[in-house]
């Protein structure tokens, strides 16, 4: 079997792999995506589609502002309706400490250029999220230009463009070896023995990026962690933004404008490390409880499905976007549960870095070898 030849091989067909592939193919590179399952079979197909710019590192805020600009134009750019809707995000503060933290975050966000984020008091929260029970609420951090989109459509849109530009997508092809010669990457080999040769290889394997790094002897500090989610039947759009309740018994959920379904999740305590995507009854009981505590009027809404997926965490909550010790081998991974929203901007920045030969690191805070002790607070 002769090797498949391209300019760049991307390991992983999630949002990060396809976004990188799209921007590289826009620059004229021939791209091959090699995916062990099918497109969106990893985390991307399991996420809840939320898109926010409210972060605390100025790199993430700026990247997310760029991502939002891409999402806004995506229907035109990709020729696919990606269900973009700027329904906003409302982070709720039930304690003076949270309020203080949000107030200082808002200052950082505004300084980074996010002008429409603001503090809203409890009465205004009630107006922004009709039907919300504001008991004990001091107010919230609200950004109306945050939003939502449909992950499957975004990935398909990117994949379609990659194919249109002469690239190819290889599903059910698991990479098991990174090929190299004289300190330079030369391609990958799959477990069926097929070779894909290219001078650039991108590790966009999300929760599996550590394993893929190890194939080249490179340590990528990304750990998988299980998160569960559920979705309800669709009802009339109620104009409630994404509600984020960081209390121990809180959660986050939003309603899709496109079809009226509510979708949500919460971060389990203690966390559940590993690649398991088993779902639990505990979640199916807890999540509705948490949703009804915030919006009691949803009580008759029916849950139609639950599932689980993986976050891909780094020690400090920021992504890794960097070259590695092996020339031509890049890592774009460890999105820490924000990869869908970061995807478009990450793909663009990664493509620029790779196209320029990987010399100028665009975001030092995302370097592979960094001090991981400064945590992103709005993780």
């Amino acid at each position, binding site marked *: 079997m002769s090797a498949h030849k391209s300019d760049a091989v991307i390991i992983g067909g999630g949002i990060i792999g396809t976004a990188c592939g799209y921007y590289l193919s826009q620059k004229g590179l021939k791209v091959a995506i090699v995916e062990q399952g099918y*497109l969106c079979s990893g985390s991307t197909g399991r996420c809840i589609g939320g898109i926010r710019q409210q972060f605390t590192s100025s790199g993430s805020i700026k990247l997310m502002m760029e991502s939002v600009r891409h999402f806004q134009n995506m229907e035109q750019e990709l020729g696919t309706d990606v269900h973009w809707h700027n329904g906003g995000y409302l982070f709720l503060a039930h304690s003076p400490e949270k309020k203080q933290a949000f107030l200082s975050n808002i200052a950082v966000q505004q300084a980074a250029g996010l002008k429409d984020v603001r503090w809203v008091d409890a009465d205004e929260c009630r107006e922004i999220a009709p039907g919300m029970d504001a008991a004990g609420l001091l107010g919230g951090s609200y950004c109306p230009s945050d939003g939502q989109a449909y992950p499957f459509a975004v990935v398909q849109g990117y994949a379609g463009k990659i194919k249109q530009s002469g690239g190819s997508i290889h*599903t059910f092809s698991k990479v098991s070896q990174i090929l190299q010669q004289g300190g330079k990457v030369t391609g990958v080999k799959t477990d069926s023995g097929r070779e894909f040769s290219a001078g650039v290889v991108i590790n966009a394997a999300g929760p599996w990026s550590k394993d893929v790094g190890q194939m080249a002897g490179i340590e990528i500090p990304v750990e998988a962690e299980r998160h569960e989610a559920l979705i309800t039947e669709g009802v009339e759009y109620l104009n409630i933004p994404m509600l984020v309740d960081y209390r121990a018994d809180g959660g986050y959920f939003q309603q899709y404008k496109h079809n009226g379904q509510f979708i949500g999740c919460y971060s389990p305590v203690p966390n559940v490390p590993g690649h398991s995507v088993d779902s639990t009854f505990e979640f*199916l009981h807890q999540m*509705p*409880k948490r949703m009804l505590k915030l919006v009691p009027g*949803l*009580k008759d809404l*029916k849950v*139609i*499905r639950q599932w689980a997926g993986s976050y891909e965490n780094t020690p400090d909550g920021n992504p890794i976007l960097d070259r590695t010790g092996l020339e031509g081998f890049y890592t774009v991974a460890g999105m820490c549960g924000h990869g869908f929203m970061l995807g478009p901007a990450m793909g663009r920045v990664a493509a620029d870095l790779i196209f320029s030969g990987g010399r100028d690191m665009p975001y030092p805070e995302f370097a592979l070898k960094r001090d991981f002790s400064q945590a992103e607070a709005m993780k």
Partner: protein
Amino acid sequence: MANNTDKIVCRCEDITESEVLAAIEQGATTADEVKRLTRAGMGHCQGRTCRRLVNQMLARALGQKPETQRPITQRAPLQPLTLKALAEYKES
């Protein structure tokens, strides 16, 4: 795209035969992929009505027997349940 003579395959999500065929043409080889490309199987009944039809279409297109096609992943709850019922459920 849907037209008037197109048969409905997934009633819950209003997905037609030609939309499923388009997904297969795009490269889908499993029902889970068809589901992600078209939403057939993501509806209220969780594919109880459409999954057989999707598998038959896949098998025909790929020259396989329908029973060799893996059905879409089924997930809890098996029937839609209200948020209230789930929130109030107590294990006895």
